[in-house]
C-alpha cells in the first residue's frame, strides 16, 4: 500500500484542528473551574434536591434526590410528547386527506388551516393558548360541568379518576384481546395471500377488544367506579377541585399548540405520500374489480405509507424536541426542572447541560430507531 500524502494530509489536518479546538475548550474549562472553585462531577445527582415540582407523574417532593427530579422532568417531557404525537397524527392525517378532497370547500379549509398554523412561530402559539386563550376560561367556582363530571377551568382540566377493583384481571383481558387480534390479522393475511379471501379484520378486532374486557367485568369480578372532582373552598374567593385527575393548564396549552403546529407538517407529508402514488396504480386496481375502499386499503395506503413514514418520523422528532419550549410557560419538563431549577441551585453548568443534551439525543435516536425498524418492515421486499 502506498503512503499517500494527498489522502492523509487533509484528514490529519482536520483531526488536528478538531483536537486543538477541543483541547483549547477543555483547558479553559479546567482553568475557569479552578478559578471559581467548582469541581467537576456527577455526584450531585444523589444529593437532596430541596425544590418542589408542581406536576409530576411519580411521587416527588423536595426531599428526593436530583436524579429523581431529572426523572420527573423526563417523564413530563415524554408525557407531553406522546400526547402531542397522538393528536398531531390524527389531525394531520385527517387534514392531509382533506387537502386531497374533491370538495372545493373542504380542500380550501384544510389548505387554510395548514398555511395558517404553519407560518406562525410555535412559541407564539404556545403563549397565545396559555396567556390569552386559556386565561379566558371560567374560575373553578363558575365552571360548568362537561357531561356532569369534567370541569374545564382556568386552573386546568379536572376529570374523574378511575378506581379499579381487580385491575389485573381487566389488564390480562386486554392483553388477551390484543394477542387474539394479532393472531387473527396474521391468519387473515395468510388467507388473503393464499386464497384471496377477505376477512373483516377491523370489525372482528373492535368486537374482540370490546367483548373480552366486558366478559372480565361480568365474570371476572372487575369493578370500576369513578371519583368525580368536587369543588372545595380554600379561602373566601379561592376554589379548587379535589379528587379525580387534574391536568394543569400548562400541559393543555403545550399539548394543544404542539399538536396543532405539527399536524400541519404531518398533513403535508400525508398529502405528498398519497399524491406520490401514480394514477395508474389506482386505475389498475379498479380494473381488476376492487372496490374504492379496497383500492385505498390494499393498493394506495401500503405504497403511500412508504413515502409518508420517513418525513413523518422527522416531524415526531421535531415535536419531541419542540416540547422543550415548555420552559417558556413553566410546564415542568426536563429543561425547566433540570436545566433550569437544578442548574440554578447546583451551578453545575457543564454536567447538567451535557446530561440534558445527551437525554434529548437518546430520545431522538430511540424514536428514529423505532421508526426505521417500522419503515424497514413495510419497505418493498426485493427478491
Amino acid at each position, binding site marked *: 500500500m502506498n503512503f499517500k500524502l494527498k*489522502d492523509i*494530509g*487533509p*484528514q490529519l*489536518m*482536520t*483531526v488536528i*484542528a*478538531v483536537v486543538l479546538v477541543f483541547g*483549547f*475548550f*477543555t483547558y*479553559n*474549562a479546567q*482553568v*475557569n*473551574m479552578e*478559578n471559581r472553585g467548582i469541581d467537576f462531577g456527577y455526584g450531585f445527582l444523589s444529593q437532596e434536591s430541596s425544590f418542589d415540582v408542581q406536576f409530576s407523574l411519580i411521587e416527588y417532593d423536595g426531599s428526593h434526590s436530583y436524579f429523581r427530579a431529572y426523572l420527573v422532568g423526563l417523564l413530563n417531557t415524554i408525557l407531553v410528547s406522546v400526547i402531542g404525537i397522538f393528536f398531531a397524527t390524527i389531525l394531520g392525517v385527517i387534514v392531509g386527506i382533506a387537502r386531497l*378532497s*374533491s*370538495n*372545493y*370547500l*373542504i380542500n380550501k*379549509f384544510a389548505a387554510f388551516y395548514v*398555511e*395558517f398554523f*404553519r*407560518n*406562525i*412561530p*410555535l*412559541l*407564539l*402559539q404556545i*403563549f*397565545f393558548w396559555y*396567556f*390569552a*386563550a386559556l*386565561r379566558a376560561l371560567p374560575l373553578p367556582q363558575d365552571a360548568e360541568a362537561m357531561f356532569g363530571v369534567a370541569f374545564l377551568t382556568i386552573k386546568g382540566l379536572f376529570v374523574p379518576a378511575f378506581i379499579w377493583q381487580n385491575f389485573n384481571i381487566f389488564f390480562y383481558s386486554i392483553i388477551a384481546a390484543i394477542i387474539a387480534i394479532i393472531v387473527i390479522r396474521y391468519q387473515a393475511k395468510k388467507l388473503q395471500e393464499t386464497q384471496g379471501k377477505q376477512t373483516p379484520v377491523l370489525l372482528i378486532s373492535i368486537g374482540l377488544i370490546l367483548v373480552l374486557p366486558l366478559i372480565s367485568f361480568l365474570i371476572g369480578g372487575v369493578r370500576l367506579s369513578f371519583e368525580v372532582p368536587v369543588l372545595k373552598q380554600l379561602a373566601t374567593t379561592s376554589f379548587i377541585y379535589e379528587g379525580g385527575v387534574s391536568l394543569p393548564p400548562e400541559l393543555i396549552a403545550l399539548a394543544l399548540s404542539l399538536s396543532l403546529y405539527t399536524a400541519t407538517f404531518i398533513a403535508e407529508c400525508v398529502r405528498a405520500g398519497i399524491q406520490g402514488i401514480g394514477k395508474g396504480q389506482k386505475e389498475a386496481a379498479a380494473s381488476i374489480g376492487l372496490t374504492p375502499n379496497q383500492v385505498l386499503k390494499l393498493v394506495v395506503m401500503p405504497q403511500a405509507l412508504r413515502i409518508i413514514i420517513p418525513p413523518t418520523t422527522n416531524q415526531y422528532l421535531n415535536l419531541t*424536541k*419542540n416540547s*422543550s*419550549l415548555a*420552559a*417558556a410557560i413553566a410546564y415542568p419538563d426536563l*429543561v425547566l426542572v433540570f*436545566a433550569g431549577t437544578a*442548574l440554578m441551585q447546583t451551578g453545575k*453548568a*457543564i454536567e447538567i*447541560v*451535557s446530561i*440534558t*443534551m445527551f437525554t*434529548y*439525543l437518546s430520545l*431522538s*435516536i430511540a424514536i428514529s430507531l423505532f421508526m426505521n425498524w417500522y419503515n424497514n418492515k413495510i419497505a418493498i421486499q426485493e427478491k
Partner: protein
Amino acid sequence: MSKINFLKPDKSNLYTFLYLGTFLFFISVLDVLLNSFFNLNLTGFLPSFLSYFLPLILGFIGLYFIRIELSGIKQLDLINKHINTNNFNAILSLLIIFIILKSIPPILSWFFIDASFAGDTKDVCTGTGACWTYIKVWIRRFMYGMYPNGEQWRINLSFIALALLGSVGYFATDKFKKYLTLYYVVIYPFIAFLFIFFFISGGPVFFDFSYGIIAAILSIIIGFFIPSKFKFYYFLIVPFSLYILLKYFIFYEELIELGKLDGLNWVETGAWGGLSLTFIISFFCLIFCFPIGMAFALGRRSGFPLIRYISIGFIEFWRGVPLITVLFMSAVMFPMFLPADFFIDKLVRCIIAISLFEAAYVAEVIRGGLQALPRGQYEAAKSLGMGYWKMHIFVILPQALKLVIPGIANTFLALVKDTPLIFVVGLLEIVGMLNLAKTNPEWLGFAMEGYVFAAIIFWIICYAMSKYSYNLEQKYKTDR
C-alpha cells in the same frame, strides 16, 4: 324499485326539484346568516334542539334535491361537482359554510367594529373588541425593543439602506450579472456587518469576534486566488492565523475604538430588541448557516473517512438536540470554555449558536441535493480535468442547490420562526417584548391583542418567504 328513487331528480321533473332544492338550501343559509349577523332566529318557535339542527337538515335535503349528473345548467353542474358529490360531502360543505358564516361577525366585531383605535391610555379600551391603542402605544417597544427613542432613525436608516443594497440584483445589467454571486456572498454581508457595527451599535458590539469576521472575510476573498490544490490547507490554516495576527499584532485597541463614530452614542446589545432584532438575528444566521452547512454537507460526502465521521458527528449532534438547550449551552456553558479575559457579547453567542444549529439542517438538505445528482455529472466534470473545488463550485453545487431550493427555504423559515427562543438568554425580540409589555401594571389584560399582532407580522413574513421560494423554484426549474 323506482319507488325508492322517487326523490331522486331526473330530467323530466328537473326544474321542480331544482326550485325546491335551491329554495331549501337558501332558507337554511339565510337562517344561519340572519342568526349570526342580526341575531334573529327564524326558527325560534321550534324547540331549541330542533331549531339548532334545522338549517343543517333543510340544507342537506336541498342539496340532495339538486344533486343530478349533468343537468346542462352550468352553475348547477359546478356546484354539484365541487361541493355536492355525495351525501357525506354535502354535509361537510354545509358545515363549513355555517362555520364561516358563524365566525365572521365575532371576528369582524373584535377586530374592527368594537375595537378601540383612538387615544393613548388604557381608559379608551372599554368596548368588547380589541384594544389596538395598546399596540399603538407600545409600537416603538415592539419594533425597536429598549433602543432609545431618539436613536431609532439609525435602525431605520440601516434597514432601508440594506434593503436597497439587497435589491441590486434586480437592476443589474448582464455585464454585472456574473459578479452578483460574489456580491451577495461576500460584499453584501460585509456591508451589512459594517452597518450593524457602526450604525446600530455605534460601539464595541462584537468585541473579539469582530477580528474573526474580518479574518474570515479577508481569507475568503484571498481564497478565490488560491489554486484549487491548496485550498483545503489554506482554509484550515489561514483564517485562524489571520485572526491571531489581527488580534495580537496589528490592531488591538484600535479596532474597538474603530466601532465608534463621532456623534453616535453606543447602544449596547442588551437594549436591542423587538422586530428589528428578529431581522438582525435572522439575517446573520441565514448568512452564516449556509456556508457552514454547505461545508458539512460536502464533508459528509467526502472520500476521507475521518472528515466524513467528524461531519456526521457534527450534523447528528445538532439535529438531535432542541434549540433551547443549545441556547442554554451558549448562555451558561460556553463562557466556561473560553479564556477568562475573552469576552463575547451574548447576541453574538446567540447568533453563533443558532447558525451552528441551523447549519446542521442545511447540511442535510444540501446532502439530499448532492445525492440526487447523477454520477455522470461528477464524471463529466472530472474528465474535463477539474479539481475537487472547481468541480463542486462550477458544476455540482449550482445544480444541487437548484434542486433543494424548497428544502432550504423550509430551513430558513424554521430559522425565522425559531428566533423568539432567544428569550432564554434574556434577549427580547418581538415575542419577548410582548411578554414584557403584558406584565406592565398599567396595561394588564391585553395579551390577546399583542399575540394576534405578532402572529399577523410573523405570518406575513413567513408566507411571503414561502411564496418567494416557490417563485425561485419555478424560475430555476430546468428540464433534465
